[in-house]
């Protein structure tokens, strides 16, 4: 092999980089579940829980457009129930424990919604 020193260094760097996910996984914590705390006194979310898990951000986006562009502050869910469109007063009334619910899941997935630069979280006096 020519330039063995450089080539072997390159191969080692390459292998370490490519297997990095495994090392990072082994070194870091395991992640088995989101560990979120669900609201105790409620049974159902606005839509089905599958839909909420996947699409709650799109629902919020839709709500925002509905409320602010369409001037429509009532949302009719799939099952016919009517909800008043409000991030703070609807979502966070049930999910009052923001830290253990929204935040827990978001931090694990590196999602940092910028909503709270304007909207107010319950329990936070500003």
């Amino acid at each position, binding site marked *: 092999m020519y330039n063995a020193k450089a080539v072997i260094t*390159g*191969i080692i760097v390459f*292998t370490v980089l490519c297997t990095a996910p495994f090392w*990072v996984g082994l070194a870091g914590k395991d992640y088995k579940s989101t560990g979120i705390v669900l609201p105790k006194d409620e049974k159902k979310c606005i839509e089905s829980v599958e839909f909420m*898990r996947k699409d709650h951000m799109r629902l919020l986006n839709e709500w925002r457009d509905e409320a602010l562009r369409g001037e429509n502050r009532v949302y009719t869910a799939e099952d016919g129930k009517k909800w008043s469109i409000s991030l703070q007063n609807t979502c966070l009334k049930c999910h009052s424990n923001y830290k253990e619910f929204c935040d827990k899941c978001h931090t*694990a997935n590196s999602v*940092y919604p910028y909503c709270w630069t304007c909207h107010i979280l319950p329990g936070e006096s500003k």
Partner: protein
Amino acid sequence: MLLSLLLVLLIGAVAWAGSAAGFAPLFGVALPYLATAVFICGMIWRMVYWAKSPVPFRIPTTGGQEQSLAFIRQAKIDCPSTRAGVFARMVLEILLFRSLFRNTQADVRAHLPASNGPGTIYYSSKWLWCFALMFHYCFLLVFLRHFRFFAEPVPAWITCLETLDGIMQIGAPRFFMTGAILLVALLFLLGRRLFNQRLRCISLANDYFPLWLLIGIVGTGICLRYFDKTEIAMVKVFIMSITHFSPVSTQGIAPLFFVHVTLVCTLLLYSPFSKLTHMAGVFFSPTRNLANNSRQKRHINPWNPPKQYFTYAEYENEYRDAMAEAGLPLEKAPDKAAE
């Protein structure tokens, strides 16, 4: 072109049908392990293969004046004669694609003012460089962003990347610029092959296949984020279980996710055996990584056969008598040499 498109679609369709029919562990667990192993071993095999190929002589594909007399200015980076110059050339090549920057295009024009008639002109064409750079850097950023699924806790630098990427704050989930730029750049690279007749003529299936494959990966990725979302939290649990070698059930993850994974695995499997090896190959390019110092240093071909020398002294020893007979001048007369 069509063939490679069909092949990518077929792979996607197989993955979709397979994971919808309950074979998701095959596409989501077995294939990624296999693909990772093949990719790493394949690339190492490639690098060793290249490293074993001798490059005895310098290949000076110059982009500038080589080192010459003191009063002629050398292009120190384009035609380096020192290690530092080569290092600079490699860095510029790898990080900024300097060779593509020099890309020129030839065109025949009906009227040129210089010759007052028809003629060929060459002009600098930066489009390829521009889109190639966009593609590679966005690909890198998108690749790095995916590490949020592989690390717990997520490192701060990934979050920082995401914040920058989503700085436009459009929609929710936030619109990431790199994904869109990646797709646009890929479409340009594909369009270049389709609409430039000369390029189209020399483009083969192994040029189109990687492009379609990447378009498929980017397309499914964008779909998974913005349109047909899957449960990100569950995907992270699933991916973390794979990196811990204790895969959990694939229940509840959308088939589209497995199409995405299968296409990525196809890319990994395909890389070591195709032109995509240029990610390692660029480091091995003799035209980039060797100094053009043939005029200062003698480079000897290592596999030259050993030379057989026949010196004049030996020659005279061999033919002394015959030479003396013919009356030729000798360094040693026969009677002296006999001593």
